[in-house]
C-alpha cells in the first residue's frame, strides 16, 4: 500500500533533550491514524517535522511522495496545537486568506466559506471579527480553514482540546467526513479515549520513542482482557465461592459490583460460564482493555515497540 507519510529513523534534539528518537512511521494513503502519548512525548515535534516547520537532525521523511512538506503544502491541511487567528480580521476574510495561501482559486471561494461555516453552526459569522468568537467557535473556524482546500493529507495536533462535548462531536464528525472523502488523517492527542473512539490505527510515543504502532482492534485483541465486571442479582450475596474458582485470581469490590481478575492463560469464556453458574448476575461483562491502560502497562513494563508489538505492529510500522 502507498504511504501518504513515511518517517524513517527520525531524530530531533533540543540541546541535551532528545525530543524524538529514531522514529519510524508509515501512514498509508486514506488511513486514519492517531499519535498518542502523554504531554511532552514528542508528538508535536514529530508533526512539526512532518510539516517542515522543524527539521530533523537525522533520518528521512516523505510526505505525499515528496521529501519535504514544503513541496506539497497546498495538499496538506494542518491544525497546529499552538493555533491562532488574526484577531482583528473578519472570520470570512481569514478563511478566504488561508484558502488563497493554500492555492484555492478565488472563484466560488466566498460561497465555499459560507457553506463551511453553516455546516458547523457558524452561519452568519463571516462579517464578525475573529476576536468576537468564543474559543470553541474559533477552533471550528480553524479546522475549517485547515480543510477548506480539501487536502489529501490532514494533520491535526490536539484538535479537540478544550472543547465542550457538543463542539467536540461536531469537529469529530468533520474529521470523519474528511476521512470518508478520501483524505489521509493523522492526529495527535494525549487524551487516549479520543484516539480510541476515532482512529483505526494508533501510534504510541513515550519520551520521543515509539512504543506501539498497531490497529486499534489488534491492540485490544493482543492485550487480552483478564478482568470481568460482575454485579450479582442479589447485592448482599456472599461472593466467597467465586474466589475458590480455578480461573479466578482475585475478586475486588468495584463501584457497582466486583472486578474479577483472572489467572494468566485462563479462558475468559469458560470463566464467565463458571461465574454465572456459581452466582446469578444482574450484569457480567468482559472489561475491554483501554488504550490508556495498555499505554501505562507498556511504559511501566519498560518495553517498547520492538518488545511488545507483534506482526500487526510490525506491519503498521513498515507498511
Amino acid at each position, binding site marked *: 500500500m502507498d504511504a501518504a507519510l513515511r518517517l524513517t529513523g527520525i531524530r530531533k534534539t533540543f540541546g541535551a533533550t532528545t525530543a524524538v528518537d529514531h522514529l519510524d512511521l508509515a501512514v498509508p494513503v486514506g488511513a486514519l491514524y492517531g499519535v498518542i502519548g502523554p504531554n511532552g512525548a514528542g508528538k508535536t515535534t514529530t508533526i*512539526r517535522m512532518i*510539516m*517542515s*516547520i*522543524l527539521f530533523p537532525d537525522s533520518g528521512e521523511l516523505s510526505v505525499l511522495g515528496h521529501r519535504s512538506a*514544503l513541496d506539497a*503544502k*497546498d495538499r*496538506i*491541511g*494542518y491544525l*497546529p496545537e*499552538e*493555533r*491562532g*487567528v*488574526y*484577531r*482583528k*480580521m473578519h472570520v470570512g476574510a481569514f478563511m478566504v*486568506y*488561508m484558502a*488563497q*495561501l*493554500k492555492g484555492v482559486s478565488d472563484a466560488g471561494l466566498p460561497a465555499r466559506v459560507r457553506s463551511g461555516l453553516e455546516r458547523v453552526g457558524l452561519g452568519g459569522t463571516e462579517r464578525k471579527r475573529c476576536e468576537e468568537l468564543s474559543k470553541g467557535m474559533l477552533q471550528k473556524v*480553524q479546522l475549517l*480553514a*485547515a480543510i477548506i482546500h480539501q487536502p489529501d493529507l490532514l494533520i491535526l495536533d490536539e484538535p479537540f482540546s478544550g472543547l465542550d462535548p457538543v463542539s467536540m462531536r461536531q469537529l469529530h464528525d468533520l474529521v470523519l467526513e474528511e476521512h470518508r472523502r478520501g483524505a489521509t488523517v493523522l492526529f495527535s492527542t494525549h487524551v487516549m479515549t479520543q484516539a480510541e473512539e476515532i482512529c483505526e490505527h494508533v501510534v504510541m510515543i513515550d519520551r520521543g520513542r515509539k512504543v506501539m504502532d498497531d490497529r486499534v482492534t489488534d491492540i485490544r485483541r493482543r492485550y487480552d482482557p483478564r478482568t470481568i465486571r460482575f454485579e450479582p442479582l442479589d447485592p448482599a450475596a456472599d461472593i466467597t465461592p467465586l474466589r475458590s474458582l480455578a480461573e479466578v485470581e482475585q475478586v475486588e469490590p468495584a463501584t457497582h459490583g466486583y472486578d474479577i481478575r483472572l489467572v494468566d492463560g485462563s479462558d475468559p469464556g469458560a470463566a464467565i460460564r463458571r461465574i454465572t453458574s456459581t452466582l446469578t448476575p444482574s450484569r457480567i461483562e468482559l472489561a475491554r482493555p483501554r488504550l490508556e491502560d495498555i499505554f501505562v502497562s507498556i511504559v511501566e513494563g519498560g518495553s517498547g515497540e520492538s518488545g511488545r508489538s507483534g506482526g500487526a505492529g510490525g506491519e503498521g510500522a513498515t507498511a
Partner: protein
Amino acid sequence: MRKIGLIAAREFLATVATRGFIVGVLLMPALLALAFSVGPRIMNQRSATVHGQVAVIDPTGRVTSALRTTIDPQAIAARRDETARRVLAAAPAAVRDLAASTGNTSNAAVDRMVGAVPDLQIVDSSDIGSQKAWLIEPTKELQPRHIAVVVIHHDAVSLPADHAEYGTYDLYVPVNLDDRIEAVIVDSVREAIVNARVLTQSLDREHLDALLRVQRPPSVTVTRNNEQVTSGVFNRVLPFAFVGLLLFGVLMGGQGLVTSTVEEKSSRVIEVLLSAVSPFELLAGKILGQMGVSLVVLALYIGLGLMLLASFTMLGLLDITLVFYLMVFFVITYLTIGSAMVAVGSAVNEMREAQSLMMPIMLTMMVPWVLAAPIAREPNSTFSTAISFIPPMNTFAMLLRLTSSAPPPAWQVWLTMGIGVGSVVAAVWMASKVFKIGLLMYGKPPDFKTLVRWVRAA
C-alpha cells in the same frame, strides 16, 4: 511569488486600513495645514496695548526730548513698517505676493511677533535711588505701569576730547517685563541718542542713513533650465528634509515589521501560516507589505513638499533626480533595516522584549542624523566620504552629500548603491535564518550571542 504577494497585500491592508494609520499619517499634514490656515485667523487678535511710564535721568539734557519723539507710538509703528518692508524685499516673490494679498494681516503678524505698539510716557527724573524704588512699587489699577528707568551717561551725546567712544546708558526694569516692550525701549533710546548726537554735530540724519544704506540684492541661482532667486533657507533645509524623510520611512516600516511579527507570534497564528507558506515566503511578504506602507507615506509627504515648493514658486530650485535617489536609498535602507527588525520580531515574544534588541539598530540609524550637520557642511571630507561606504549609514550619508552644496562624484554614488545592495543580501540572508528558528521559539528571549548561533545553525 503569488503567496508572497498575498502576504504582502494582507500586511499592507492590515496596516493601512486602520483608523490609527489614517489618523497618524494624515495628522501631521492636517496639523500643518491648520497651523498655516486657521492658526493666523485664531491668533489674529492684536495683543493688548501696554500703557506705561519710563523714567529718564538725562544729565546731557538732550536725549529726553529726542526720546519723547522716538518713543511715540506713531514713530515706533513707522520704524516697524520700514523693517518689515526690508525683510519682505529680501523674501521670495511668493512671500511678497502673499503679504501684499493679506494686507493688514501682515501688520497683525508683525504685532504678534514683536507685540502691539506700547503707549509709553516719559517721566523726567534726577534721583536714581528714588526711581529704582518707584520701579518696584506696585501700580494701582488703571494707572500707567512703571516700566523702566533709563539713565543716560553724561558723555552719551558729546564725545569728550580724550575719549574715542561715546558713552551709553543704563536700563533698569522690573521683574517679568515683556522682552518685546524692553526691545521697544532699547530701540527708542538708541534712536534718541543717535538723533541727539547728529543734532549736536549739526548733521542731517536722513542724509547719513542714506549714506550708510547699501541694498543687498538677492542672489540668483542658475540652473540648466532657468534662473531663480536663491533661497538660503531652502538650501539649508533640503539635506535635513531628505534625510528626515528617509529615516522616517525606514523607522516607520521597521517598527511596523516588529509589531506585526510579534503580534503574529503572540497570537499563535504563525504556525498556521507556516503550514501554508515557507518561512522565506512569509518573511518576504511581510517586508514587502510594510515597504508598501512606508512608500505610501513617503509619496504623500514628498507630494505635499513638492506642492508647497510649487506654491512658493521654488520648485525649480529642487533637482528632481534627488527624489529618485531618495527612493532608491529608501528601498536599500529599508530592506537592510527591515530585515533586521523582522528578525528581532521573530526572536521575541512581546514588544517589551524587542526594545533591547532594537536598541543597537536604532542607535546605528541615529548616527547619520547626529552627524548630518558636519556631513552637509563638508560633504567631500574624508569622514563624509568614508561614512558613505559603511552600511547601513551609507545611504543616509550619501543622500546628505547629494543634497549638499558640493555633490559627490558619480562613481561614489554608484559604489554606495552597490554596497547597499550587498548589505541587503546579507541582511535578508541572516534575517531568514533567525526568522526560521525564532518564529517557533517561546520563552526567554535570545541575547545577541544566541542570535549569532541561530544564524550559524539554520
